[in-house]
């Protein structure tokens, strides 16, 4: 390829720097968002996996007992019976003075060797101190760095056993190796000796589980040998639900980032097409002096490659920076909902970088393919006419509309048949989006024609509308990009709004007491703090409560793996408040049957994950073996994404399950009582007790829950903003292109006497028409996306159903935002056009 040809082509960069910059921005943002989300996801995933592995270790199975633990003598018996590859564990959450939650893992360092060797430095020097000095604990290395605490500092931990001081040992200091403090030292797992853990977690003489390593042959032998109250459970079944949920959450994010990329692709395509059209004179002249079609094709692609490479490199830098922000967000969400995950630094892996590089450069080339072809093809005719391109664009619009119907049908089919589960849901979503977006140019053509007919008598609006229609190759992609961004904004608003509304409503229903008394230490299904049952009489006496409910969560082994069991002694009319979705029993009879029979209720996510229907039976491990419970109904609950089984205290006791204390007391006060005074009296009484406990109001719980909720969706808001920015740039680029191309027309109008202000209003009118079209088209598309997100994707991913709520204020806001963005985007070209020099523009070859 001749150097002069290249120079003739690339000199345009100097003449229109802003235009070329927009292309670059499209690549940069697209690449940055995808890379950032991917990196953040990967980092959170690694942290999550590491935490899971540290807890589970290299065991193949776990021996589990009731939630309250089992006698440690069982462990000695197992070892005596010849099971050597076993390690006892006591575990549970605890709270640091700063309020953050950690996870305490009590191990027997001497037995641990085979299990957690590398992960927790067990078997190393400090471990001996754990055994020889009670009350010592190994925090994660990163904790010393982050908290600024020194080696051997005293820390107060609040756990099931009350508040206790322990000595934090820094493994690095102990080993005289400062460099041992690597990035990998994060996490929230605090390792200690089993005896210390038993004290902290109120487990004296008891164990939570025994880790074992078994060959396939040994599994059945050991299962047989275990006493009835113990269960042998494969390791994978623990944390499996959490893993799947975290995965689903990340899939949601990835889909959002791909949407941003799709919109960026529109931007790149738009600016590339314009880059070619702007230089049609150059192309024509080059062709006339004998430059071949291939050279033209090549030079356009070469430019795209250049833009792609530069944009991707800059985008990668921006993406890594953005990932630092996102990783904290993602990790926080995973922690809030699933498991304590430490935020680690973002380490871009070569593979991810390579993939993103291919994506960015590939997308740029792909977006330039059509314009390059257009350039090479038109060059043959001498000059590349806009007319021909636009006629083709209008023909294409009709074909795209046909194609769109096919995509819509395919997407609809996927939804109706429900094929492919979560991934199928996303595929359907993208099919529907693609289908509707491809339909847009056609709808736009007819809308503009209709508008043109409407303003037949009024010249300027007619010019504005007709020139939009005649520049379809320009106006359609920009409008699509804006529509897509606005629709995504509406869709997410519908989803988040519906979700938020449903959660709020659910909290209002679930929190049926006026006050709650809960342990100060974190609650948890296993190793969590409990309050004594015999507090009830005192609480009633001090508060004057007319009714007291109790509730406690525990992990129970079932035929479907470990399940979360919520045991309640409810208020009398609790069923009136329970958001029951389905039931085999009339509501009036339900309370009676739950109290007197082996019956349970399950939450919506539980039913979804375990494919349970009302009328099914669920076997739970009770002392003496498995016991079937009839599922009487499904109720709505957003508390535990893995799902919960609800059982009344009466059924629990009748099944012979060992009492496990109370996770929370709910007090209903008589009407008109001074709640503040009651709280004061209760707090005074609680202060005298040896168990630390708190009085909380439903309002506080609601507030905290909603705060977690909002944190979860903060990242979607961020992505939404980025998407809108890209769309804004797309519409700005398109309007600028449109106006530059029509410069000669504008100059003619000006020479005929149109005032500069008239030019401005013409341009702004065009922006307004495109913006309004995009905004109006975005409403049905966005509502459809919202519905799909709620009914298909969230149901598949989390098993959560929710009531569709239309957040009209946000829809209106988004619509106004879209029109505003289009008007704002037209400000720059309007200003440029109005002060354009007329003579050079008039001289331009048509």
């Amino acid at each position: 390829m001749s150097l002069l040809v290249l120079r003739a082509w690339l000199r345009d960069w100097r003449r229109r720097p802003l235009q070329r910059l927009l292309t670059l921005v499209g690549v940069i943002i697209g690449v940055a968002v995808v890379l950032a989300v991917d990196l953040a996801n990967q980092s959170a995933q690694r942290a999550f996996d590491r935490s899971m592995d540290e807890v589970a270790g290299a065991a193949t199975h776990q021996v589990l007992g009731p939630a309250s633990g089992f006698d440690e003598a069982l462990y000695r018996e197992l070892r005596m019976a010849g099971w050597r590859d076993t390690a006892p564990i006591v575990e549970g959450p605890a709270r640091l003075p700063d309020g953050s939650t950690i996870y305490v893992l009590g191990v027997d360092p001497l037995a641990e060797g085979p299990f957690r060797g590398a992960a927790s430095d067990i078997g190393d020097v400090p471990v001996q101190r754990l055994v020889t000095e009670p009350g010592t604990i190994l925090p994660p290395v990163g904790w010393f760095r982050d908290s600024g605490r020194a080696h051997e500092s005293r820390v107060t931990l609040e756990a099931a056993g009350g508040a206790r001081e322990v000595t934090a040992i820094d493994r690095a200091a102990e080993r005289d190796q400062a460099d041992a403090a690597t990035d990998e030292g994060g996490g929230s797992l605090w390792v200690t000796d089993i005896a210390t853990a038993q004290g902290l977690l109120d487990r004296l003489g008891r164990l939570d589980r025994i880790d074992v390593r078994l060959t396939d042959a040994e599994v059945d032998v050991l299962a047989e040998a275990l006493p009835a109250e113990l269960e042998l459970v494969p390791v994978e079944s623990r944390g499996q639900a959490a893993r799947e949920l975290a995965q689903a959450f990340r899939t949601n994010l990835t889909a959002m980032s791909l949407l941003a990329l799709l919109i960026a692709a529109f931007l790149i395509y738009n600016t590339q097409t314009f880059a070619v059209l702007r230089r049609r004179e150059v192309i024509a002249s080059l062709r006339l002096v004998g430059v071949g079609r291939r050279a033209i094709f090549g030079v356009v692609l070469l430019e795209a490659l250049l833009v792609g490479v530069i944009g991707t490199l800059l985008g990668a830098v921006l993406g890594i920076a953005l990932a630092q922000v996102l990783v904290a967000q993602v990790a926080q969400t995973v922690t809030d909902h699933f498991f304590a995950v430490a935020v680690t630094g973002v380490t871009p892996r070569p593979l991810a970088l390579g993939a993103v590089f291919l994506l960015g450069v590939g997308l740029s080339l792909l977006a330039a393919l059509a314009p390059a072809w257009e350039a090479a093809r038109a060059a043959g005719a001498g000059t590349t006419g806009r007319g021909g391109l636009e006629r083709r664009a209008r023909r294409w619009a009709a074909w795209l509309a046909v194609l769109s119907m096919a995509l819509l049908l395919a997407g609809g089919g996927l939804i109706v048949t429900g094929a492919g589960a979560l991934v199928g849901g996303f595929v359907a979503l993208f099919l529907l989006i693609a289908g509707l977006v491809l339909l847009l140019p056609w709808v736009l053509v007819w809308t503009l024609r209709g508008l043109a007919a409407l303003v037949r008598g009024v010249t300027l609006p007619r010019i504005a509308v007709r020139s939009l229609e005649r520049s379809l190759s320009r106006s359609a992609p920009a409008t699509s990009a804006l529509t897509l961004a606005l629709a995504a904004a509406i869709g997410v608003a519908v989803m988040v709004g519906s979700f938020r509304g449903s959660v709020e409503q659910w909290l209002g229903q679930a929190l049926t007491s006026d006050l709650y008394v809960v342990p100060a230490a974190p609650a948890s299904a296993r190793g969590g703090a409990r309050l004594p049952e015999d507090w009830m009489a005192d609480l009633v006496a001090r508060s004057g409560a007319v009714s007291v409910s109790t509730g406690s969560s525990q992990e129970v082994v079932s035929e479907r793996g470990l399940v979360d069991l919520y045991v309640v002694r409810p208020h009398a009319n609790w069923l009136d408040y329970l958001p029951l979705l389905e039931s085999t029993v009339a509501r009036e009879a339900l309370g009676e049957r739950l109290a007197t029979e082996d019956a349970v209720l399950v939450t919506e996510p539980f039913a979804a994950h375990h494919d349970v229907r009302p009328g099914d039976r669920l076997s739970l491990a009770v002392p003496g073996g498995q016991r079937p419970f009839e599922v009487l109904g499904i109720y709505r609950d957003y508390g535990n994404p893995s799902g919960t089984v609800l059982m009344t205290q009466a059924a629990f006791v009748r099944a012979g399950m060992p009492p496990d204390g109370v996770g929370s007391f709910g007090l209903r006060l008589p009407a008109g009582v001074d709640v503040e005074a009651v709280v004061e009296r209760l707090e005074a009484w609680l202060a005298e007790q040896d168990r630390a406990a708190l009085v909380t109001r439903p309002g506080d719980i609601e507030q905290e829950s909603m705060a977690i909720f909002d944190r979860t969706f903060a990242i979607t808001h961020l992505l939404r903003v980025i998407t809108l920015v890209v769309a804004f740039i797309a519409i700005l680029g398109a309007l600028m292109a449109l106006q530059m191309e029509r410069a000669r027309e504008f100059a003619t109008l000006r020479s005929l006497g149109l005032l500069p202000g008239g030019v401005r209003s013409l341009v702004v009118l065009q922006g307004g028409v495109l913006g309004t079209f995009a905004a109006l088209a975005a409403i049905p598309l966005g509502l459809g996306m919202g519905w799909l997100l709620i009914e298909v994707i969230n149901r598949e991913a989390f098993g959560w159903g929710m009531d569709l709520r239309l957040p009209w204020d946000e829809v209106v806001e988004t619509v106004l935002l879209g029109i505003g963005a289009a008007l704002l985007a037209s400000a720059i070209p309007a200003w440029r056009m109005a002060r354009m020099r007329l003579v050079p523009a008039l001289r331009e070859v048509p």
Partner: protein
Amino acid sequence: MEQQGSVEGAVLSLTDVAFAYPGEGEVLHGVDFALRAGERVAIVGESGSGKSTLLHLAAGLEAAARGQVHLTGQALAGLDEAARTRLRRGRVGIVFQSFHLIPTLTVLENVMLPLELATDLSAGERRERAAAQLEAVGLGDKGARYPEALSGGEQQRVAIARALVHEPALILADEPTGNLDSRTGETVFALLLEQARATGCSLLLVTHSHELAGRLDRVLTMRDGLLQSAGSTEAAPA
């Protein structure tokens, strides 16, 4: 309101007008020229001598670096872009070499455009006058078409109709036949002359054809950035 420097009764007058494109040497060095009401003048000259530039200055599309331009007695110097535009749209009609029709408007709408911009006529009256003007250039039946569906000659006739429809005092025409073959050019030229005479407006026309130029009242030659009289047929205006 007559002003200093303007030639009495002239539709257009240039006094010692100089002009240079940004960053280039001077194109016009001090042009003195006056066009009387109803007078029809041709300007000839070599390519690049500054003929188009002169027309642009006369139309107020560019501002003179030095000297005075008066349009129907009104000085252009000191007027801002909007004021110059208002002056132009009321008093001047322009015919370009390459037609410059608005492709997104029909032929009739193109002709209606100056009426909409420069007059207070009602929509119906605008339509009527534009249709009559189209009829006058022989295109009464093509009003509903878009410009792309017309031949070059027809397009230029539409441009002439558009330049005349609002009855300006002055028509500026820059090589109106330059893009047409000689026979079509002849027809269009004759039409322009006839229409200018019919409406009684002045005409300043740039052309490369001495034959066509000779049919006007006066011929001036642009040379060395100055406008020189070139053995004209010094006939009095009709």
